[in-house]
Structures are given as C-alpha cells and as structure tokens.
C-alpha cells in the first residue's frame, strides 16, 4: 500500500476486545483475524481519511520509543488486505 493511500475499515466486521488483542470476525466469510495491541491501534486509524503516511507520523509522535513503526504499519495493513478487512477510500 502506498503512503498516499487512505485505508478504510470495511463494514460488516464484528469486533471483540480480549485483553490486549482484538478479534475481527467477518460473518459473511466465517473468517476471523486476531490483532495484537499495535495492530488494533492501526485498525482504529483506518477511517478512510488518514493516509498511510499520516498513520506512521501519528504513531511516531504517540510512541517515540517504539521500534520499526513503518514495518508494523505495513504488516498490519497487509494482513487487513489479505482478509479483505479494509478498502482504499
């Protein structure tokens, strides 16, 4: 996904928070995806307005001591795409 893309959560997914994780469940496909804490924050940022670059910048500001935020965002968005959980706005 490019830095200028604006990922948006696809509607229809059910979510449940369990401790530090969030489960996304697609009832149409009967498929589920387990997000760790970092991925669940990235999922929350996929509102169709923020670009990928915006997300990375926001996370860097919020978590200055975090490791490779670019990679975390890239891997999370890749997983969301594979599960058809996001669309490009």
């Amino acid at each position, binding site marked *: 996904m490019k830095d200028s893309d604006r990922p948006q959560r696809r509607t229809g997914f*059910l979510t*449940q928070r*369990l*401790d*530090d*994780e*969030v*489960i996304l*469940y697609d*009832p149409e496909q*009967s498929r*589920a*995806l*387990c*997000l*760790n804490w970092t991925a669940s924050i990235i999922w929350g940022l996929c509102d169709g307005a923020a670009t990928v670059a915006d997300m990375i910048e926001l996370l860097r500001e919020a978590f200055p001591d975090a490791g490779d935020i670019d990679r975390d965002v890239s891997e999370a968005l890749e997983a969301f795409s594979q599960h058809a959980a996001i669309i490009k706005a």
Partner: protein
Amino acid sequence: MSSGRLVTFADTTIEVLARDQDALKLVDFLFARFPQTTDVPPCLELELASDGSSTFVLWREGSLVYRDTTAVRAAQLLLAEAAHRFAVNSRDALLIHAAAVELDDRRILLPGPSGTGKSTLVAWLDQYGFGCHSDEMVIVSHDTRLSGYARPICLELDARFVVPEFLDKARSEGRLLEGTDALMAVGRSPISAPPVVLHCILFPRFSPRARTVLRPLSKGAAAMKLMISVANRRQLGDHGFSAVADLARAVPAFEFTYGRLDKEAISHMLGVVVP
C-alpha cells in the same frame, strides 16, 4: 410393537424406537448416556429394526431411509441423523465440534474438527480415569456450562494400534461394537450429570514425532480457534461471536501438542487438571 427411548440434547428431544430386541439393544448401546426427559416433546422419530440376519433397517418419520446396513453402519446412521437434528435446532447456545472429558469434577473441552484425533485421545484418557462427556460435539451455554453429545466413543480401526488396552477392556466388558471399518466403545470412567461448568479448554494438536508441549494461549488466540469449531455459527448470527469471546474470557485455554500418547502426555494432562 416398538419400544425405545427419548433422547435429549441441546433442548431438543427425539424419539428413537426399536421394533425388536436386537434393535433395542443397539439403541440402548448408543443412547444410554443421554438424559431422558419428557419435558420437551420429540421433534423427530427414528425407528430401527433388525431383519434377523445381522443387518438393520432404519425409518425416519415412518419413511424407509436405509436398509441392509450392518450394526455399526446402522449405529453411525442413527447417530448422524440425531446429530443433524440437534445441530439444526440449536439456536441459543454454542454448539462446538469438541470432545469433553472430566476428572475429579474438573471438565476439559477439547475442540477440533472431525478427523483430528479427538476420539482416540478421549479413549486413551478414559484409561486414566477421565470420564467422557462426548468425543464429538458439545453445547456450551452463556455461563460456561457444558452438555456433551454422549454417544459412544467412535474410533477408526487404526485405534487398535494406539489404544489396544482400552479396546481389550471394552470388549471384555461388553462395551464395544466392532465393524469392518469402525469401532464404537462406551467409556468406562464416570461423569457428572450435565450440565457441568468448564475448567479449561485444551486445543489438541497431533504432530508425528513432536514432543509433548502444553502452551497457554492468549484469550484472542483461543477465541480465534474456538470460532473455527463452532458448528452453529450461522444460526447464532452476531450473538455467536460475542458468545465465543465471552467463553474465551471466562475459561483459560492451552494448546496441547503431542506426538505420542505416553506418560509424558498424561503428566501434562494431569498437570492441567490437578493444580
């Protein structure tokens, strides 16, 4: 003149009739561990008869559905007919592809799709005193109470090489039904009357030559794995997903990887049950 029994599971009752002594003996063998109740009127009638030459005939609602079946095949068909009706009618609680066992009032759920070795594992555990609530399917209500589809343990012929002592004992005690391609045995170890509260969830994973490992699972991972095993997720709709999450929150879960059913494996199992 037919006799038989009412069989209740998941708030659904069916009536299984037998036209003769051989048929009644088979019906009793299959359904003896199910609760009988007259509270819920039966929604399905199945009827079995022996034709006098070691084969059976099966009717559903008065219509002939199978004939010339062996005892084991007739048993499989009866159990499948019953399970199908119970699953279709199950709209409130979670219906999970899972075995369930108990030891010392502690109940363990062992989820997994058909064909993943649940029945063999349950037969092996029976030898160590674990009572079998089901080797195939359970209902778990919102307060984590469990009722098992209490059929006999259904095994493939390969089980003769994995749990020979269990089968020998079952044979000598008249708890074994043997066919040319399958075996059925009633467990020996006692169980509490359902429903019972769950102690933990163990996801069994057989891997040849693997060392026995018991690994705690996060609640998220447990919910993911449970969701795969929920048989009535479409009937339950959105409620099913939240029920699975509630179950994962309430009950600790582990992944149980094993390559052999040996002393190391049983010590891990006992470690879960005995604090």
